[in-house]
């Protein structure tokens, strides 16, 4: 071999090895920092939401509460509030409210909000983020006293029992998410009723019945592709098929419902069902795949038919996996927004959905609506709604994990 060809020996090799290690350490730090960025992003996101959902509020009463009642505000009873509202509101306005939900049936808190909103006319002057409120509390109070001498300053949690139980309102201070939560529940329920049986059936067909041929391959490839189709395209499909073509069905007109068009919670639920169907199928297939063949052979061995084998052995042993997959698919449906915009979720609606043929709104729709408003108090209630949505999602995911751990079978 050529004498010029050589490897560094001893000292010079050790020196070059040290350089190699230095490069390696730098890169290891870079690789790890990617995860750090992910962690910081997650924390920043959670912080932004929490920061927006709590903080000081400066507000004024346009009319002095004393002109309506001599009782101190915090001591007003339900009856008193009812009398005040009945006498001071115009009869048209009162009737309209009564029509939405009978006044007698409303809670004290609800009536109190109405009192503040309609009569006293609470007017929010300015709001602050949680960080500002904590760090500069005294300055905020001083500044408010100067700018709005009549205003009160109060630390508010924008997520509150009242926020959960109130319907929509055009004023952020009185708006709530009850209508939206109910809408979301209807939506997810309909999606599940549609997608779970069909999805499980499709998975059973593909894993247990389907012959290995080009047609089965196409079905499988198609399902994988559908899982990657943008959700907005499902929205367009829902608009074309469920809202328009199937309008007689989805508006309920063939069942005698007359006051609606196709933009119902039923249409939206079916759209969501179609959207999560591929996910449910793929998850259910995985669950069914995990059932060992020996179990099937044992069933066939005692003379069971194919369906008996599936029904008595395969499904009971994969049901936990199927349900876990379905719950995860549901949490996807719960957070989806774009398809709902397309199939026509109502932007402003204060009536709870009463059945599948109701107009509806949903939590993510409200978050979208409120986030895109210019006024900061709407951003605050958007943050509140996000917190509620995240809690719902966490609950669903925790359920899925518990279910998986509880029923996990080891073969």
């Amino acid at each position: 071999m050529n004498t010029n060809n050589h490897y560094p020996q001893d000292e010079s090799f050790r020196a070059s090895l040290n350089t190699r290690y230095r490069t390696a350490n730098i890169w290891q730090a870079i690789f790890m920092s990617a995860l750090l960025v992910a962690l910081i992003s997650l924390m920043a996101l959670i912080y932004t939401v929490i920061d927006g959902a709590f903080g000081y509020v400066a507000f004024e009463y346009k009319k002095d509460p004393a002109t309506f009642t001599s009782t101190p505000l915090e001591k007003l009873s339900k009856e008193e509030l009812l009398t005040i509202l009945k006498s001071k509101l115009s009869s048209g306005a009162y009737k309209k409210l009564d029509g939405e939900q009978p006044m007698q049936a409303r809670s004290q808190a609800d009536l109190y909000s109405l009192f503040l909103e309609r009569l006293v006319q609470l007017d929010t002057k300015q709001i602050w983020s949680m960080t500002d409120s904590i760090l500069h509390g005294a300055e905020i109070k001083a500044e408010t006293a100067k700018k709005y001498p009549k205003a009160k300053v109060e630390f508010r949690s924008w997520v509150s029992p009242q926020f959960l139980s109130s319907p929509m309102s055009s004023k952020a201070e009185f708006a709530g998410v009850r209508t939206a939560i109910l809408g979301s529940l209807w939506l997810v329920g309909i999606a599940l009723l549609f997608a779970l049986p069909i999805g499980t059936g499709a998975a059973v067909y593909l894993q247990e019945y389907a012959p290995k041929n080009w047609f089965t391959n196409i079905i499988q490839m198609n399902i994988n592709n559908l899982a990657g189709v943008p959700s907005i395209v499902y929205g367009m499909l829902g608009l074309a098929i469920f809202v328009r073509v199937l309008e007689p069905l989805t508006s309920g007109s063939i069942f005698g419902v007359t006051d609606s068009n196709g933009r119902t919670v039923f249409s939206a639920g079916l759209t969501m069902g179609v959207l999560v169907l591929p996910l449910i199928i793929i998850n259910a297939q995985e669950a069914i795949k995990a059932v060992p063949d020996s179990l099937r052979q044992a069933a066939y061995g005692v003379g069971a038919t194919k369906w008996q084998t599936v029904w008595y052995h395969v499904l009971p042993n994969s049901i936990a996996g199927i349900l876990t997959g379905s719950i995860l698919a549901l949490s996807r449906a719960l957070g989806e927004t774009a398809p709902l915009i397309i199939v026509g979720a109502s932007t402003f609606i204060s009536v709870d959905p009463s059945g599948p043929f109701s107009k509806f709104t949903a939590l993510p729709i409200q978050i979208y609506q409120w986030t895109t408003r210019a006024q900061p108090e709407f951003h605050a209630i958007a943050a509140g709604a996000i917190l509620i949505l995240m809690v719902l999602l966490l609950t669903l995911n925790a359920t899925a994990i518990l279910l998986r751990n509880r029923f996990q079978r080891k073969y």
Partner: protein
Amino acid sequence: MQNNQTPEYAIETKDLSIHYGSFVAVSNVNIKVERLKITAIIGPSGCGKSTLLRAFNRMNDFVPSSHVTGEILLHGQNLYGKNVDPVQVRRKIGMVFQKPNPFPKSIYENISWGAKINGFKGNMDDLVEQSLRSAALWDEVKDKLKKSAYELSGGQQQRLCIARTIAIQPDIILMDEPASALDPISTLRIEELMQELKKNYTIIIVTHNMQQAARVSDYTAMMMIDDKRSGGVIEFDDTKKIFTRPKDKRTEDYVTGRFG
């Protein structure tokens, strides 16, 4: 040993034991591997042959629970000493694996990669050619150096792995059943190659094939598990002696096929 010259040892072990957690996989090995010879490690499966071999270039480090007691001495330095860098150890002690594992790169790059990371200075084309010639592969691949190594046959891939190992000029080459995944003709070529290589390299080979050990090796270490399921070297001697006049009854049973 009965050599009249003073034997020169490439590597030796002193009370070497290899542990996985609390389990002792290999216990109390004391062998001296002679330079420029082929030493075979034989024994029934599960006796810790590969574990012992992998201890020589610290490949067991990648098994999280493993640790070693005793010493392995290379030029008087303990490989498991405090400040020893496993990367430097592997630079000096190369390895050829059971299944050919060429890198998913071209034939040329398979050779040049190791040279590059180890700071080779000089003519790379020369090095690649030399290494391939030494591995008796040059004539078969000289026209397709830029092709993927995966286009070669299994036997050719294994010789490529040998070529890439000798390209970085190690002192010792470890071979872990290098022919077990190959057909008889490829096996023969690898065995011939080993005879060539021992002119320049010390070779330690693990094999489950006793005929192979008898054919290629100068020395043989016989391993067997004891009643605690720990492997150990029960006899280490000239290959000829091991196969004709073993001292240990168990070795005799094993090499004559009466084992088990």
